[in-house]
Protein backbone atom coordinates (compact mmCIF):
# COMPACT_ATOMS: atom_id res chain seq x y z
CA UNK A 1 0.00 0.00 0.00
CA UNK A 2 1.17 3.48 -0.80
CA UNK A 3 0.17 4.92 2.54
CA UNK A 4 2.75 6.93 4.46
CA UNK A 5 3.24 6.39 8.19
CA UNK A 6 1.29 9.50 9.03
CA UNK A 7 -1.70 8.35 6.98
CA UNK A 8 -1.59 4.97 8.66
CA UNK A 9 -1.57 6.67 12.02
CA UNK A 10 -4.59 8.79 11.08
CA UNK A 11 -6.48 5.76 9.82
CA UNK A 12 -5.63 3.30 12.60
CA UNK A 13 -5.63 5.58 15.65
CA UNK A 14 -9.41 5.82 15.98
CA UNK A 15 -9.80 2.05 15.82
CA UNK A 16 -8.47 1.51 19.32
CA UNK A 17 -6.34 4.05 21.22
CA UNK A 18 -8.38 7.02 20.15
CA UNK A 19 -11.73 5.36 19.55
CA UNK A 20 -14.51 7.90 19.08
CA UNK A 21 -17.08 6.02 21.15
CA UNK A 22 -15.24 4.56 24.11
CA UNK A 23 -12.43 7.11 24.49
CA UNK A 24 -13.65 10.40 23.09
CA UNK A 25 -17.27 9.84 24.23
CA UNK A 26 -18.68 10.88 20.86
CA UNK A 27 -21.64 9.45 18.99
CA UNK A 28 -22.90 7.46 21.91
CA UNK A 29 -26.59 8.18 21.39
CA UNK A 30 -26.95 6.24 18.20
CA UNK A 31 -24.42 3.60 19.22
CA UNK A 32 -26.83 2.56 21.92
CA UNK A 33 -30.16 3.00 20.25
CA UNK A 34 -29.81 0.95 17.09
CA UNK A 35 -27.83 -2.00 18.41
CA UNK A 36 -30.50 -4.37 19.65
CA UNK A 37 -29.96 -6.38 16.43
CA UNK A 38 -26.84 -6.91 14.34
CA UNK A 39 -28.26 -5.90 10.96
CA UNK A 40 -29.30 -2.33 11.78
CA UNK A 41 -25.97 -1.91 13.59
CA UNK A 42 -24.08 -2.74 10.41
CA UNK A 43 -26.26 -0.49 8.24
CA UNK A 44 -25.83 2.35 10.71
CA UNK A 45 -22.06 1.83 10.86
CA UNK A 46 -21.78 1.98 7.06
CA UNK A 47 -24.00 5.06 6.80
CA UNK A 48 -22.09 6.98 9.44
CA UNK A 49 -18.73 6.05 7.91
CA UNK A 50 -19.85 7.29 4.50
CA UNK A 51 -21.26 10.54 5.87
CA UNK A 52 -18.30 11.36 8.10
CA UNK A 53 -15.72 10.61 5.39
CA UNK A 54 -17.40 12.74 2.72
CA UNK A 55 -18.37 15.55 5.10
CA UNK A 56 -14.72 15.71 6.16
CA UNK A 57 -13.60 16.00 2.53
CA UNK A 58 -16.13 18.70 1.68
CA UNK A 59 -15.42 20.82 4.75
CA UNK A 60 -11.71 20.38 4.23
CA UNK A 61 -12.03 21.69 0.66
CA UNK A 62 -14.11 24.64 1.86
CA UNK A 63 -12.06 25.34 4.97
CA UNK A 64 -10.35 28.47 3.69
CA UNK A 65 -13.54 30.08 2.42
CA UNK A 66 -15.83 29.56 5.44
CA UNK A 67 -16.04 32.60 7.73
CA UNK A 68 -15.28 31.51 11.28
CA UNK A 69 -18.45 32.88 12.87
CA UNK A 70 -20.90 30.90 10.82
CA UNK A 71 -18.90 27.71 10.46
CA UNK A 72 -21.24 25.60 12.60
CA UNK A 73 -24.20 26.40 10.40
CA UNK A 74 -22.19 25.69 7.25
CA UNK A 75 -21.06 22.37 8.68
CA UNK A 76 -24.60 21.46 9.65
CA UNK A 77 -25.89 22.23 6.17
CA UNK A 78 -23.21 20.07 4.51
CA UNK A 79 -23.88 17.22 6.92
CA UNK A 80 -27.64 17.55 6.63
CA UNK A 81 -27.43 17.38 2.84
CA UNK A 82 -25.31 14.22 2.99
CA UNK A 83 -27.62 12.61 5.53
CA UNK A 84 -30.63 13.41 3.38
CA UNK A 85 -28.95 11.55 0.51
CA UNK A 86 -28.16 8.55 2.73
CA UNK A 87 -31.69 8.50 4.09
CA UNK A 88 -33.22 8.56 0.59
CA UNK A 89 -30.87 5.76 -0.53
CA UNK A 90 -31.82 3.64 2.46
CA UNK A 91 -35.51 4.24 1.81
CA UNK A 92 -35.03 3.04 -1.76
CA UNK A 93 -32.85 -0.01 -1.22
CA UNK A 94 -33.27 -1.13 2.39
CA UNK A 95 -36.74 -0.09 3.40
CA UNK A 96 -37.17 -2.56 6.28
CA UNK A 97 -33.93 -1.59 7.96
CA UNK A 98 -34.75 2.05 7.40
CA UNK A 99 -37.99 1.48 9.30
CA UNK A 100 -36.16 -0.13 12.19
CA UNK A 101 -33.69 2.73 12.36
CA UNK A 102 -36.61 5.23 12.31
CA UNK A 103 -35.49 8.66 13.46
CA UNK A 104 -31.92 7.58 14.02
CA UNK A 105 -30.97 8.00 10.36
CA UNK A 106 -31.93 11.66 10.63
CA UNK A 107 -30.09 11.86 13.89
CA UNK A 108 -26.78 11.09 12.14
CA UNK A 109 -26.74 14.88 11.61
CA UNK A 110 -26.40 15.44 15.31
CA UNK A 111 -24.01 12.56 15.79
CA UNK A 112 -21.24 14.23 17.74
CA UNK A 113 -18.58 12.29 15.84
CA UNK A 114 -19.37 14.34 12.76
CA UNK A 115 -19.17 17.76 14.39
CA UNK A 116 -16.23 16.64 16.51
CA UNK A 117 -14.16 15.49 13.54
CA UNK A 118 -15.13 18.46 11.37
CA UNK A 119 -14.15 20.92 14.08
CA UNK A 120 -11.05 19.13 15.28
CA UNK A 121 -9.63 17.78 12.04
CA UNK A 122 -11.18 18.82 8.75
CA UNK A 123 -10.90 22.54 9.48
CA UNK A 124 -7.13 22.27 9.74
CA UNK A 125 -6.09 19.57 7.30
CA UNK A 126 -6.10 18.74 3.60
CA UNK A 127 -8.81 16.70 1.87
CA UNK A 128 -6.89 13.39 1.65
CA UNK A 129 -5.94 13.30 5.35
CA UNK A 130 -9.46 14.38 6.24
CA UNK A 131 -10.89 11.56 4.17
CA UNK A 132 -8.68 9.03 5.98
CA UNK A 133 -9.55 10.55 9.34
CA UNK A 134 -13.26 10.31 8.57
CA UNK A 135 -12.88 6.74 7.38
CA UNK A 136 -10.90 5.77 10.47
CA UNK A 137 -13.37 7.35 12.87
CA UNK A 138 -16.33 5.88 11.05
CA UNK A 139 -14.78 2.45 11.25
CA UNK A 140 -13.85 2.89 14.91
CA UNK A 141 -17.48 3.76 15.59
CA UNK A 142 -18.62 0.84 13.42
CA UNK A 143 -16.51 -1.71 15.29
CA UNK A 144 -18.08 -0.78 18.61
CA UNK A 145 -21.55 -0.85 17.08
CA UNK A 146 -21.03 -4.28 15.59
CA UNK A 147 -19.63 -5.68 18.84
CA UNK A 148 -22.59 -4.38 20.84
CA UNK A 149 -25.08 -5.56 18.20
CA UNK A 150 -23.46 -8.99 18.08
CA UNK A 151 -23.71 -9.64 21.81
CA UNK A 152 -27.16 -8.13 22.22
CA UNK A 153 -28.66 -10.15 19.40
CA UNK A 154 -26.85 -13.35 20.36
CA UNK A 155 -27.89 -13.31 24.01
CA UNK A 156 -31.16 -11.47 23.59
CA UNK A 157 -32.73 -13.41 20.73
CA UNK A 158 -30.35 -16.31 20.14
CA UNK A 159 -29.96 -15.27 16.50
CA UNK A 160 -27.40 -13.46 14.34
CA UNK A 161 -28.55 -11.42 11.33
CA UNK A 162 -31.89 -13.20 11.79
CA UNK A 163 -30.51 -16.75 11.61
CA UNK A 164 -30.92 -19.04 14.60
CA UNK A 165 -27.47 -19.58 16.12
CA UNK A 166 -28.13 -21.17 19.47
CA UNK A 167 -29.25 -24.77 18.75
CA UNK A 168 -32.82 -25.88 19.52
CA UNK A 169 -31.47 -28.55 21.87
CA UNK A 170 -30.28 -25.90 24.30
CA UNK A 171 -33.81 -24.58 24.63
CA UNK A 172 -35.11 -28.08 25.37
CA UNK A 173 -32.49 -28.36 28.10
CA UNK A 174 -33.88 -25.24 29.65
CA UNK A 175 -31.86 -22.40 28.07
CA UNK A 176 -33.85 -19.16 27.94
CA UNK A 177 -33.07 -16.05 25.91
CA UNK A 178 -32.11 -13.14 28.09
CA UNK A 179 -34.90 -10.68 27.33
CA UNK A 180 -33.11 -7.97 29.26
CA UNK A 181 -30.44 -7.75 26.54
CA UNK A 182 -32.99 -6.38 24.07
CA UNK A 183 -34.02 -3.58 26.40
CA UNK A 184 -32.32 -0.19 26.14
CA UNK A 185 -30.47 -0.10 29.48
CA UNK A 186 -28.45 -3.22 28.71
CA UNK A 187 -26.75 -1.46 25.80
CA UNK A 188 -25.18 0.90 28.29
CA UNK A 189 -23.95 -1.94 30.42
CA UNK A 190 -22.49 -3.75 27.39
CA UNK A 191 -20.61 -0.55 26.47
CA UNK A 192 -19.37 -0.30 30.05
CA UNK A 193 -18.02 -3.84 29.83
CA UNK A 194 -16.25 -3.03 26.54
CA UNK A 195 -14.68 0.02 28.19
CA UNK A 196 -13.66 -2.08 31.15
CA UNK A 197 -11.90 -4.70 29.02
CA UNK A 198 -10.30 -2.07 26.79
CA UNK A 199 -8.95 -0.01 29.65
CA UNK A 200 -7.79 -3.01 31.61
CA UNK A 201 -5.59 -3.85 28.62
CA UNK A 202 -4.43 -0.29 27.98
CA UNK A 203 -3.40 0.98 31.40
CA UNK A 204 -2.44 4.43 30.11
CA UNK A 205 -6.08 5.18 29.25
CA UNK A 206 -7.32 4.82 32.81
CA UNK A 207 -8.71 7.91 34.52
CA UNK A 208 -7.59 9.06 37.95
Amino acid at each position, binding site marked *: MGLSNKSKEILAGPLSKNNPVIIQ*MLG*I*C*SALAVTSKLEPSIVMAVSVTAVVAFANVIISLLRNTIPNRIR*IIVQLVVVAALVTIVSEVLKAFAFDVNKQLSVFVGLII*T*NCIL*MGRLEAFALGNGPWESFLDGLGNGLGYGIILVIIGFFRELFGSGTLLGFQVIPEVFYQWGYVNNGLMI*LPPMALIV*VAVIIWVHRARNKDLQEN
Partner: protein
Amino acid sequence: MEELLSTFMRAVFVDNMLFAYYLGMCSFLAVSKNVKTALGLGVAVTFILVCTLPINYMLENYVLKEGALSWLGSGYAEVNLSFLSLLIFIAVIASFVQLVEMVIERYAPALYTSLGIFLPLIAVNCAILGGSLFMQQKAFANAGVATVYGLGSGLGWLLAIVGMAAIREKLTYSNVPKPLKGLGITFIITGLMGIGFMCFSGLKI
Protein backbone atom coordinates in the same frame (compact mmCIF):
# COMPACT_ATOMS: atom_id res chain seq x y z
CA MET B 1 -56.63 19.27 28.52
CA GLU B 2 -56.42 15.58 29.29
CA GLU B 3 -54.43 15.02 26.14
CA LEU B 4 -51.96 17.71 27.10
CA LEU B 5 -51.43 16.23 30.53
CA SER B 6 -50.94 12.71 29.27
CA THR B 7 -48.54 13.86 26.52
CA PHE B 8 -46.57 15.73 29.15
CA MET B 9 -46.36 12.85 31.62
CA ARG B 10 -45.47 10.38 28.89
CA ALA B 11 -42.70 12.64 27.61
CA VAL B 12 -41.20 13.09 31.07
CA PHE B 13 -41.38 9.56 32.41
CA VAL B 14 -42.38 6.88 29.91
CA ASP B 15 -40.63 8.10 26.76
CA ASN B 16 -37.83 9.83 28.59
CA MET B 17 -35.48 11.21 25.92
CA LEU B 18 -32.44 9.90 27.70
CA PHE B 19 -33.41 6.58 29.17
CA ALA B 20 -35.78 5.36 26.48
CA TYR B 21 -34.03 6.71 23.36
CA TYR B 22 -30.54 7.68 24.59
CA LEU B 23 -30.81 11.09 23.00
CA GLY B 24 -28.46 13.79 24.20
CA MET B 25 -26.08 11.22 25.64
CA CYS B 26 -22.83 12.97 24.71
CA SER B 27 -23.45 16.16 26.62
CA PHE B 28 -25.18 14.13 29.33
CA LEU B 29 -21.97 12.20 29.99
CA ALA B 30 -19.63 15.14 29.63
CA VAL B 31 -21.47 17.84 31.60
CA SER B 32 -22.89 15.76 34.47
CA LYS B 33 -19.89 16.28 36.76
CA ASN B 34 -21.56 18.81 39.04
CA VAL B 35 -25.16 19.66 39.76
CA LYS B 36 -25.02 23.38 39.06
CA THR B 37 -23.68 23.11 35.52
CA ALA B 38 -26.00 20.20 34.82
CA LEU B 39 -28.97 22.29 35.90
CA GLY B 40 -27.88 25.16 33.64
CA LEU B 41 -27.54 22.94 30.61
CA GLY B 42 -30.82 21.19 31.38
CA VAL B 43 -32.67 24.51 31.50
CA ALA B 44 -31.06 25.65 28.24
CA VAL B 45 -32.03 22.41 26.48
CA THR B 46 -35.62 22.61 27.79
CA PHE B 47 -35.90 26.21 26.65
CA ILE B 48 -34.68 25.42 23.15
CA LEU B 49 -37.00 22.42 22.87
CA VAL B 50 -39.99 24.52 23.92
CA CYS B 51 -39.12 27.24 21.40
CA THR B 52 -38.22 25.11 18.41
CA LEU B 53 -40.93 22.44 18.54
CA PRO B 54 -43.90 24.71 17.78
CA ILE B 55 -41.94 26.45 14.99
CA ASN B 56 -40.96 23.16 13.44
CA TYR B 57 -44.51 21.91 13.89
CA MET B 58 -45.86 24.84 11.90
CA LEU B 59 -43.22 24.39 9.20
CA GLU B 60 -43.96 20.70 8.99
CA ASN B 61 -47.71 21.13 8.67
CA TYR B 62 -47.93 24.26 6.54
CA VAL B 63 -44.85 23.95 4.34
CA LEU B 64 -43.18 20.58 4.27
CA LYS B 65 -45.74 17.80 4.52
CA GLU B 66 -47.33 16.30 1.43
CA GLY B 67 -50.24 18.57 0.51
CA ALA B 68 -49.27 21.05 3.23
CA LEU B 69 -48.94 23.87 0.73
CA SER B 70 -52.56 23.58 -0.43
CA TRP B 71 -53.38 26.85 1.36
CA LEU B 72 -51.44 28.60 -1.42
CA GLY B 73 -53.89 27.35 -4.03
CA SER B 74 -54.96 24.10 -5.61
CA GLY B 75 -51.90 23.98 -7.85
CA TYR B 76 -49.68 23.42 -4.82
CA ALA B 77 -51.75 20.60 -3.33
CA GLU B 78 -49.44 17.88 -4.58
CA VAL B 79 -46.14 19.42 -3.60
CA ASN B 80 -44.23 17.22 -1.17
CA LEU B 81 -41.21 18.88 0.39
CA SER B 82 -40.71 16.40 3.23
CA PHE B 83 -37.21 15.52 2.01
CA LEU B 84 -36.18 19.02 3.08
CA SER B 85 -37.36 18.55 6.66
CA LEU B 86 -33.97 17.56 8.11
CA LEU B 87 -32.29 20.63 6.66
CA ILE B 88 -34.99 23.04 7.78
CA PHE B 89 -35.32 21.61 11.29
CA ILE B 90 -31.60 21.81 11.92
CA ALA B 91 -31.44 25.35 10.58
CA VAL B 92 -34.19 26.50 12.96
CA ILE B 93 -32.49 24.77 15.87
CA ALA B 94 -29.02 26.13 15.07
CA SER B 95 -30.25 29.70 14.90
CA PHE B 96 -32.08 29.37 18.21
CA VAL B 97 -29.00 27.96 19.86
CA GLN B 98 -27.00 30.92 18.62
CA LEU B 99 -29.58 33.21 20.22
CA VAL B 100 -29.53 31.44 23.58
CA GLU B 101 -25.74 31.43 23.51
CA MET B 102 -25.67 35.19 23.15
CA VAL B 103 -28.23 35.66 25.95
CA ILE B 104 -26.34 33.41 28.37
CA GLU B 105 -23.02 35.06 27.53
CA ARG B 106 -24.52 38.45 28.33
CA TYR B 107 -26.45 37.66 31.52
CA ALA B 108 -24.75 34.62 33.07
CA PRO B 109 -21.05 34.70 32.16
CA ALA B 110 -20.13 32.19 34.89
CA LEU B 111 -22.50 29.60 33.46
CA TYR B 112 -21.20 30.46 30.00
CA THR B 113 -17.62 29.57 30.92
CA SER B 114 -18.54 26.38 32.75
CA LEU B 115 -20.63 25.06 29.86
CA GLY B 116 -17.77 25.79 27.47
CA ILE B 117 -17.91 24.01 24.15
CA PHE B 118 -21.16 22.27 25.06
CA LEU B 119 -23.20 25.40 24.62
CA PRO B 120 -22.75 25.67 20.83
CA LEU B 121 -22.96 21.89 20.77
CA ILE B 122 -26.55 22.05 22.04
CA ALA B 123 -27.30 22.62 18.35
CA VAL B 124 -26.13 19.10 17.72
CA ASN B 125 -27.65 17.75 20.92
CA CYS B 126 -29.62 14.82 19.58
CA ALA B 127 -32.38 15.39 22.12
CA ILE B 128 -33.43 18.56 20.33
CA LEU B 129 -33.43 17.36 16.75
CA GLY B 130 -34.87 14.11 18.14
CA GLY B 131 -37.76 16.07 19.62
CA SER B 132 -38.57 17.54 16.21
CA LEU B 133 -38.25 14.19 14.45
CA PHE B 134 -40.47 12.42 16.98
CA MET B 135 -42.95 15.26 16.63
CA GLN B 136 -42.98 14.56 12.89
CA GLN B 137 -43.44 10.84 13.49
CA LYS B 138 -46.15 11.17 16.13
CA ALA B 139 -48.20 13.67 14.09
CA PHE B 140 -49.59 15.69 16.98
CA ALA B 141 -53.05 17.24 16.73
CA ASN B 142 -51.99 20.87 17.12
CA ALA B 143 -49.06 23.13 17.96
CA GLY B 144 -50.12 23.24 21.62
CA VAL B 145 -49.61 19.52 22.07
CA ALA B 146 -46.26 19.78 20.29
CA THR B 147 -45.14 22.53 22.68
CA VAL B 148 -46.17 20.50 25.70
CA TYR B 149 -44.32 17.53 24.28
CA GLY B 150 -41.22 19.71 23.97
CA LEU B 151 -41.58 20.93 27.54
CA GLY B 152 -42.04 17.38 28.80
CA SER B 153 -39.05 15.94 26.97
CA GLY B 154 -36.89 18.85 28.07
CA LEU B 155 -37.86 18.41 31.72
CA GLY B 156 -37.33 14.66 31.48
CA TRP B 157 -33.82 15.30 30.20
CA LEU B 158 -33.22 17.87 32.93
CA LEU B 159 -34.35 15.39 35.56
CA ALA B 160 -32.00 12.75 34.21
CA ILE B 161 -28.91 14.94 33.98
CA VAL B 162 -29.40 16.52 37.41
CA GLY B 163 -29.92 13.10 39.00
CA MET B 164 -26.81 11.80 37.29
CA ALA B 165 -24.74 14.79 38.39
CA ALA B 166 -25.85 14.29 41.99
CA ILE B 167 -24.83 10.63 41.90
CA ARG B 168 -21.48 11.45 40.33
CA GLU B 169 -20.72 14.04 43.00
CA LYS B 170 -21.15 11.34 45.65
CA LEU B 171 -19.23 8.85 43.55
CA THR B 172 -15.97 10.77 44.02
CA TYR B 173 -15.70 9.21 47.46
CA SER B 174 -16.23 5.61 46.46
CA ASN B 175 -13.76 2.97 45.48
CA VAL B 176 -14.33 2.05 41.83
CA PRO B 177 -12.18 -0.55 39.97
CA LYS B 178 -9.49 1.37 38.10
CA PRO B 179 -10.41 0.53 34.49
CA LEU B 180 -14.04 1.43 35.19
CA LYS B 181 -13.28 4.84 36.68
CA GLY B 182 -14.84 7.83 34.97
CA LEU B 183 -16.63 6.85 31.81
CA GLY B 184 -17.20 3.16 32.54
CA ILE B 185 -18.96 3.53 35.85
CA THR B 186 -21.04 6.40 34.45
CA PHE B 187 -22.37 4.09 31.78
CA ILE B 188 -23.31 1.44 34.32
CA ILE B 189 -25.10 3.98 36.51
CA THR B 190 -26.98 5.33 33.50
CA GLY B 191 -28.01 1.77 32.67
CA LEU B 192 -29.26 1.18 36.19
CA MET B 193 -31.15 4.49 36.18
CA GLY B 194 -32.66 3.42 32.86
CA ILE B 195 -33.85 0.16 34.38
CA GLY B 196 -35.35 2.22 37.19
CA PHE B 197 -37.18 4.44 34.72
CA MET B 198 -38.58 1.38 32.96
CA CYS B 199 -40.97 0.87 35.84
CA PHE B 200 -42.95 3.79 34.41
CA SER B 201 -43.41 2.05 31.06
CA GLY B 202 -46.75 0.46 31.91
CA LEU B 203 -48.06 3.76 33.19
CA LYS B 204 -51.26 5.06 31.64
CA ILE B 205 -52.61 8.47 32.46
